[in-house]
């Protein structure tokens, strides 16, 4: 076991590396608590996990969750949050926080935004005012939020875009990284991560990796993916990125949260993940289970008196049946909260099992049994996953 001190305040205690795949498991020592990787980070965009108290989140074993700079920067604004002792104080979350820079909103809210070298101009949907989110502004807001991990402002382009815009964005992201590093007022308390861009172009990605890895940052994110591109292209960019990222620093794959994607991308060498999917789909009544998902609101569950997953130890499954939850959806919003809790538990349990199998040296067996449970038969395995796993020496049936 090696302890490596890293720039900033993050240090990683390496526990294990899978001898077969590129997977790793370690403990990230962050300002508020340790975080065991591989880790899935639930998303609490506006300073709250939707419908869940911080105690409930803590009770599920969550060690780190996300807040969003763009949204919180708009409402309630960085000054108010600073007065409240940062985002930790404002939402009363005692473990770690990671804030996204607002970059992704450039894509998700593309109608409302305009990019140039200065930054991203957003038209506020609330009062029509124009705001400029520059690297300096983004870091300033994140400094006020006081998150344990901050993300650089990157020039984000949808993964389905091709042509010169992709290259422009990649180069600009490097320049913005440098501006973010310069603007960070709290390098000894907050860890600024770089975000590798370059779209689906291997050369551009490589160029970005070469440049950004020269900067002294405590961690790297792989960005610009998970946006609707072909999975065949997706995994190739992920593995190219991890091939060229330093071993002793964490790799954060942004926007990935489907179970299969998580398992495969851990095998490809990623440590940290975030995605709104598990919590968002919960509110629509979709419960995540080892064999896929269960649409609780569907008629077929009206008289199903089992819990969502008989093997799940979460508070929802310990107490309530599919039938009750099905009925509750017609009566009260708390039905959503039950599924949200279950889905977060599912994600965290999955990552815990992944991590344990890496530590125990049996990750390839874990992958095989995971895939068996998830798909009715081998010919249903997604071909991109089969290829990706084969590239790291795991053959499925």
């Amino acid at each position, binding site marked *: 076991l090696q302890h490596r001190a890293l720039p900033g305040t993050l240090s990683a205690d390496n526990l294990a590396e899978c001898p077969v795949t590129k997977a790793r498991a370690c403990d990230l020592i962050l300002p508020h608590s340790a975080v065991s990787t591989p880790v899935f980070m639930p998303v609490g965009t*506006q*300073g709250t996990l939707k419908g869940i108290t911080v*105690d409930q989140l803590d009770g599920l074993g969550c060690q780190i969750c996300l807040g969003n700079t763009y*949204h919180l920067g708009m409402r*309630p604004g960085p000054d*108010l949050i600073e007065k409240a002792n940062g985002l930790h104080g*404002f939402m009363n979350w005692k473990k770690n926080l990671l804030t996204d820079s607002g970059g992704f909103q450039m894509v998700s809210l593309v109608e409302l935004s305009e990019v140039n070298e200065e930054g991203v101009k957003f038209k506020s949907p609330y009062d029509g005012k124009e705001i400029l989110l520059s690297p300096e502004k983004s870091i300033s807001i994140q400094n006020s939020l006081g998150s344990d991990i901050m993300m650089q402002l990157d020039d984000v382009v949808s993964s389905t875009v091709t042509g010169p815009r992709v290259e422009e964005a990649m180069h600009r992201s490097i320049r913005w990284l440098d501006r973010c590093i310069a603007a960070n007022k709290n390098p000894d308390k907050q860890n600024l991560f770089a975000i590798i861009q370059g779209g689906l172009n291997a050369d551009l990605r490589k160029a970005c990796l070469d440049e950004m890895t020269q900067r002294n940052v405590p961690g790297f994110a792989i960005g610009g993916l998970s946006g609707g591109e072909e999975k065949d292209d997706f995994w190739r960019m992920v593995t190219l990125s991890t091939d060229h990222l330093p071993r002793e620093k964490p790799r954060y794959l942004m926007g990935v949260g489907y179970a299969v994607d998580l398992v495969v991308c851990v095998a490809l060498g990623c440590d940290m993940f975030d995605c709104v999917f598990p919590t968002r789909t919960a509110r629509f009544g979709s419960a995540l289970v080892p064999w896929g998902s269960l649409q609780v609101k569907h008629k077929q569950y009206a008289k199903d008196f089992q819990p969502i997953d008989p093997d799940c130890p979460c508070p929802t499954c310990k107490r309530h049946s599919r039938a*009750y939850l099905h009925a*509750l959806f017609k009566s009260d919003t*708390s039905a959503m909260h039950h599924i949200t809790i279950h889905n977060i538990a599912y994600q965290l349990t999955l990552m815990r099992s992944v991590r344990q199998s890496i530590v125990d040296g049996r990750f390839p067996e874990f992958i095989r049994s995971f895939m068996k449970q998830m798909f009715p038969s081998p010919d249903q395995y997604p071909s991109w996953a089969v290829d990706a796993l084969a590239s790291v020496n795991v053959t499925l049936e």
Partner: protein
Amino acid sequence: MAGSRIKLELSRVVQGESRLGVLKGLGRTGQHCLEVPGCLLYSHLGTVPHLTQDTLHTLKNIPAVTQVTLSSVAEHQEVLQEFKGGFKKFAGLHDTVVYCSLHDPAALCPPGYTTNKTVSVWGSGGRIELTVAKFMAIQKTIQPDWYQSMADGETWQSNTSRKRLRKSVDRTLAHLDECLTIHQNSQDLQGVEVFGVVEGGDILEERARSARETAKRPVAGFCLDGFQTGSMDQTLRTQLIKAIAKELPEDKPRLLQGVGRPDEVLACVEAGVDLFEGFFPFQVTERGCALSFSFDISLDPERAGRAPPAVLELNDDETCRAGEGQPNGEVTDGDQTQMTSFEINLKDKRYHDDFRPLVEGCGCYCCVNHQRAYLHHLLVTNELLAGVLLMIHNTAHYIGFFSTLREALANDKLDLLKRRQVILIATSFSVTVTPDGFESAALSHLGMESKHPRVKINMTLIWLQE
């Protein structure tokens, strides 16, 4: 049904009307009890709105009885039938007593659907018509610990004719008799208690008749229907309840339906009511408000008798609001969704940077862990957590109010509690002088300066002076 297991043990009866005691023998094994005056735990299909069992159990002194309504349960009759284990088990409830009412006190039913033989409830899929037979069949699948008999209560609208009111009394008695017959012959409902329902609208003779007749039946207690907030003013309500109480046995509980506002609760306790439905905290939550009225009666004896300490202890919120024009300033007996003087509207800009808890000294999870500014943010951004936190606080506050109410009854401090309510209402709204100056006399008795040029009659002031 001879010898109901439910027993009301009264420890005090104040001025011949207000009752203090404990309702014992609740639940199948009779091991639960509920202090009275008290409130029930309001639920949607067994779940306290917005809450899971974990968030619910951050509350101390949760009422021992959970109210479920046929309006939420009826549509699941088939499911419950197949489940066979009763509603409590189906819902995964904690160890609680389940009381089944007909209607949801927070959701008014459209009128015009009651017949001689049927009443209707509205589920998520629309109207469900119930005969007594169907009503009882559903009760068998629910297996509550106690339920109210089927009743025709469609009389809460003003100007219901005498003829219609008489019908509501007759029908309700007929339904009760039919329910009891089926109940007594049903193995499944062994040990389950039934409450009769007193109807009669706003006609004293019909109310008395309904009460008298219902009391002749072997019921474990009485629901008082048709008094919902908005149906009549408090003076009339008090008058009618007192008349009803005269006809009812002292040792059986009286549950008042559809009334939850603290000032109305106080007045109705004084008229002889024991139990209330606990839906008011939910209504406050739904409008993004937090209960904040003070019910502290542990006053410094040095100050008693001088200028009302209550005024001095009003926090800035209340006195500020008196100066500003509140959009719906009247404490009318009208719309239940209107904000009352018992709460603060957290959406208001002033809370944007208010880092105090909702209520100083409140020990609930929300007040211990969060601040007004955060709740304001959650409301402005339409976040689901707002409902969760407000429901916790509002329920805790309401439970605390009832606890204090019982304490006030035990220690002859009910006047202090009432005074606090009155001043709270009176200072929050502009008030008008009437010709005989009675109200200004009342206000000066309380040592209160009128902040406004006109002083208007306020119902609550009147009953205080009686």
